[in-house]
């Protein structure tokens, strides 16, 4: 078989431009279905009737504010890229990243608080509801770590001034995911409040 190249056509770049965002959106749909499956499992299990209620740790409320702030900061970053002010952009992305890490810390504090109050994830003292509360929050954090990695990439690219008004696709994709993670947390927060906690 001979290898022939298609000359004069830079189609790879065009494909990337047309499909990066839709790919992200489809990825988000599958994550939604994943959490949809798990939250349905909570509801089906609850149908058994023996669900106990658990006190939601206060630091989860802090998490909620932290993640909302981080989304705002990221947005400021994108706006400043569009305006060409890299300094503000850099600071905003850095703040987003720090707030993202702070979110993970507050989640961890939440788990510690749960553990201290005798709510266990596994073992014979755990119940379904106690397992679910750890599992759902932890899986959200797992997805969030993907977001943090993308934030680091965006931060480096911002530092190197790789983005501009008409070239910020990577950043936009990252923002989409980050907002989604924020939304997902808010959903989980209220879902857990009204089912388990």
């Amino acid at each position, binding site marked *: 078989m001979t290898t022939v190249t298609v000359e004069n056509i830079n189609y790879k770049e065009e494909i990337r431009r047309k499909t990066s965002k839709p790919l992200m959106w*489809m990825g988000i*749909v599958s994550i939604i279905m994943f959490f*949809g*499956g798990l939250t349905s499992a909570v509801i089906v299990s609850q149908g058994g009737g*023996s669900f106990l209620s658990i006190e939601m740790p206060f630091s989860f409320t802090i998490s909620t504010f932290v993640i909302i702030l981080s989304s705002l900061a990221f947005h400021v970053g994108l706006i400043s890229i569009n305006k060409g002010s890299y300094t503000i952009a850099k600071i905003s992305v850095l703040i987003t990243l720090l707030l993202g890490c702070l979110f993970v810390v507050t989640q961890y504090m939440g788990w510690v608080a749960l553990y201290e109050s005798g709510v266990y*994830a*596994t073992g014979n003292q755990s119940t379904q509801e106690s*397992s679910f509360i750890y599992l759902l929050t932890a899986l959200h954090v797992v997805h969030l770590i993907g977001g943090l990695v993308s934030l680091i990439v965006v931060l480096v690219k911002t530092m190197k001034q790789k983005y501009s008004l008409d070239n910020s696709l990577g950043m936009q994709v990252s923002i989409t995911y980050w907002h989604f993670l924020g939304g997902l947390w808010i959903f989980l927060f209220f879902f857990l409040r009204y089912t388990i906690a």
Partner: protein
Amino acid sequence: MSTHHHHAKDFLFTYIFSTDHKMISKQFLVTGFLMGFLGLIMSTLFRLQLGWPGESFEMIEMLMGSWQEGGVMSPDKYLALVTMHGTIMVFFLLTAGLSGTFSNLLIPLQIGARDMASGFLNMLSYWFFFISCMLMLASLFVEGGAASAGWTIYPPLSALPEAIPGSGAGMTLWLVSMSIFIVSSLLGSLNYIVTIFNLRTKGMSMTRLPLTIWAFLLTAILGVLSFPVLLAAALLLVFDRSFGTSFYLSDIYIGGQVLDHTGGSPILFEHLFWFLGHPEVYIVLLPALGITSEIISTMSRKPIFGYRAMIGSMMAIAFLSFIVWGHHMFLTGMNPFLGSVFTFTTLLIAIPSAVKVFNYLTTLWKGNIVFTPATMFSVGLVSTFISGGVTGLILGNSALDINVHDTYFVVGHFHIVMGLSAIFGMFAGVYHWFPKLFGRMMNNKLGNIHFWITIVCAYGVFFPMHFLGFAGVPRRYYTNSEFPMFNEMIDINVFISICAIIALVGQLVFFFNFVYSAFRGPRAPQNPWKGNTLEWTAPVEHFHGNWYGEIPAVYRWPYDYSKVNAAGEYVYGEDYIPQTTPLGDDEKDGGEH
């Protein structure tokens, strides 16, 4: 020296870590077929046990060693092989093998794109698939043997490592393998959807898409919506198995010991599993239906009858497939009212299915049919889709299902409607697009021999299973000879097993034809079947980018076959008009109405 190095690198990126959709398609095809062949051999092995229970097959002991001690398969191995057979056939052959091959090959070529949305994710998708194949096969060799809880891996057998031998390391590997498989499948599906929505060539509106593409699109959407739920189910299972949670477990004794688990319910698993499981049967079936639509229209030299109805019925099937999962659970103590709701939604699927069958038959009706192996297998699919679909009406009815649930009636039903239909569609696709895949033609005579052996033996295997099922013979049993009333039916089982063995031999004809033609077949012309779709406008040789120069634009739907003008002459002198031919002044686009 340096050129040599360059060659090695070329080889690596052309054949192994290729990001070109055509090469990835071939990788999926070959891997899928090899897995399918193993699955087929497994089924023949356990058919030996079912046809001649307890009899010794020494020849097989030579091959299988301790798995077949004294030539007789042990009950443990029987369960493991049934589970592996089901898993391999459903997921590895008919999900990854079928979609992976044809979505990859045809989406870019038929919509007029240079490649998939992301070649890199596409490559990852294949390699995840490959790793999951290897892990699944490796699980045959671990202590305790492969997973043995059936392809549906219901807890508690799947949740308690100590339950049966196959619940140990084999089950763990099954779960790891399937998780990787799900990731592979999702990466593929994301790519297919985004490619279809965003990379169509000029003029390729949604109502000018070939029905193959519509089928692949809906299949991918089903995948994105249902596979994550299976991942969630598997994850909860992993926690129950390894970390002491109780999502699916409660009040269990093993060897007189009470286990710690309380509060969970295996029914939760069934809900989650079948929320994937039912759409999964359409993930398997829809691509085959799409392939058939395309082939039947091309080969009967007639426009597909009811193009829009075909799209509509596929959409209806895809939608309904999400609200019928309860029909697998009628016997879980479900509220009878809920059961009747699931009965209702299930029976509704008969309507779009009947529309499709009607359209296939009307397309063939009075057509100028060209009989190729692809045509034969497509018509074979229509046949199995009908005869398997009819028994679905019985199973979908909660009152009737009680009598045949978990019997061989079910095994007969799903093999015909899903197994045979999908594999026939896959064979049809391979015969039809072989020239596109390998630039050479397959041998028609061998293809026809393969078809007749396959369809006769396949009905020979699966049709009599309905009678076993009516008599109450349960599925997944190692032997039925202990039950006098079932033992009387041994002749049926012997007949089935003989058909299964001949079917296996028949597939060797196909494999020979496939391999021989790939290297030695006659060179293919650019458009061997006189088709209208875009893939036949692309050069026979493969290169990254698919078309030299501009991608062709599209001006009409793909089914303008035998179009005549008022004087009764072919409009452009031929009985086909490629999609790249502009519409004449007095012509209407077929997809618009």
